[in-house]
């Protein structure tokens, strides 16, 4: 059985029991995903890297706290989410940096293309997202940009699925209102 054929959960069991060096495979699997996710909270590359490193270290230290019956990806996203929120609270500042195409995901859902100049759409969405309360923002980020299901968001944010739906709906409405402001 090759390393790549192991599921995340099997990999965690092996790391815990016998082979700590396999943790590099976890880092490889999640580094891009978490960079993508954390970029929604940190514009500064160095800040992002610091947080990312802390996430991987905390994940490793607490591997025994992970229940292998559950989904590892939700667990590591949860740690990343907590770390990002703590970092933002500590430094009292937050920023959003969308990838070039990501604003289109928001546009698909809200159809804002007709209302804003395409060139400023990305910037406008970034600014609008910053203005939204963090509890709505994090749900929107996970749903739109990380393409997580309600169930996964529920596991990451540790809130009921019905609350996830409410946060996304309210967040979308707030975002729409902010985008429509002249």
């Amino acid at each position, binding site marked *: 059985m090759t390393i790549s054929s192991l599921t995340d959960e099997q990999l965690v069991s092996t790391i*815990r029991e016998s082979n*700590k*060096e396999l*943790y*590099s495979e976890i*880092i*490889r699997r999640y*580094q*891009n995903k978490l*960079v993508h996710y954390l970029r929604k909270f940190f514009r500064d590359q160095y800040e992002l*890297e610091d947080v*990312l*490193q802390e996430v*991987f*270290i905390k994940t*490793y*230290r*607490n*591997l*025994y*706290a992970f229940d292998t019956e559950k989904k590892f990806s939700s667990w590591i996203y949860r740690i990343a989410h907590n770390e990002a929120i703590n970092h933002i609270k500590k430094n009292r500042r937050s920023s959003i940096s969308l990838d070039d195409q990501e604003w289109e995901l928001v546009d698909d859902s809200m159809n804002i293309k007709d209302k804003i100049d395409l060139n400023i759409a990305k910037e406008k969405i970034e600014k609008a997202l910053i203005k939204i309360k963090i509890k709505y923002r994090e749900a929107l980020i996970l749903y739109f940009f990380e393409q997580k299901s309600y169930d996964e968001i*529920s596991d990451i944010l*540790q*809130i*009921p*699925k*019905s*609350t996830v739906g409410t946060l996304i709906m309210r967040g979308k409405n707030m975002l729409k209102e902010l985008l429509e402001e002249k």
Partner: protein
Amino acid sequence: MNSEKNNIEQKIMNDIKSGKVKLRSKYIFLAEKLGVGSAFILSLLLAILFFNLLLFYLKTSDNLAYLSFGNHGVAAFLDSFPYLLVVSFVILVFVSAYIIKQSNWLYKKPFVYLAVSLVGFVILSGIVLTYTNIADSIEEESYNSRLAGNIFRPFLHRGLGERHGGIVGRVMENDGDLLTIQTPRSVKKVDISNLEESVVKPLVPGVFVMIVGNDDDGLFQAVKLRIIKEQEIQMVNKAVRRRFGSFTIHNTYSK
């Protein structure tokens, strides 16, 4: 960007290999889980017990009976209300709910449902406990100087304290307008010459009475008086018997 990624991977793996970053022992997590679980169970059991004691207090003390005197009984009702029991019960329910919320065991369910279920479970279990004699045993224990007695005494003995505006106890002597009453704490003189309503049954020594009125320099001026069955105020009844013994004159009289 790729070299930065490799740097992070390399740095973390170096820290792991060198032992700078270590796995926390599984026993630490086990101990944490056990600790949180035990704290939850303890707070839940205590909340149930305190609710049961609250019911016991309301049933066996004079507290609720003061309300039957209308406005005159409000002061004595408030004075004899088991605030400590109620506050402890509420705090314990909050602690249980807080542990559930913080531990995220049941985050899939809305917290309101959990809170309502928790309160419902505690109340129901407290009611079921009234079919046992746990509260009686605790009350008995509260008279002892052992640890359990010292812990529970402040919660229950409010039911036996002196009241402002009210007296409950056993009639010891009846001199026409002046009654001598044995209360759980002391002997009180009560002037019943100004009662708003006359008492139908005779105030023979040995009967238990509840009186509302005003304390006037050691002599209690009764406004309303009611004869009460011993079993309606068992806590007071037991405390009076414990302090003054059984009443032989009354027994002779009733024969």
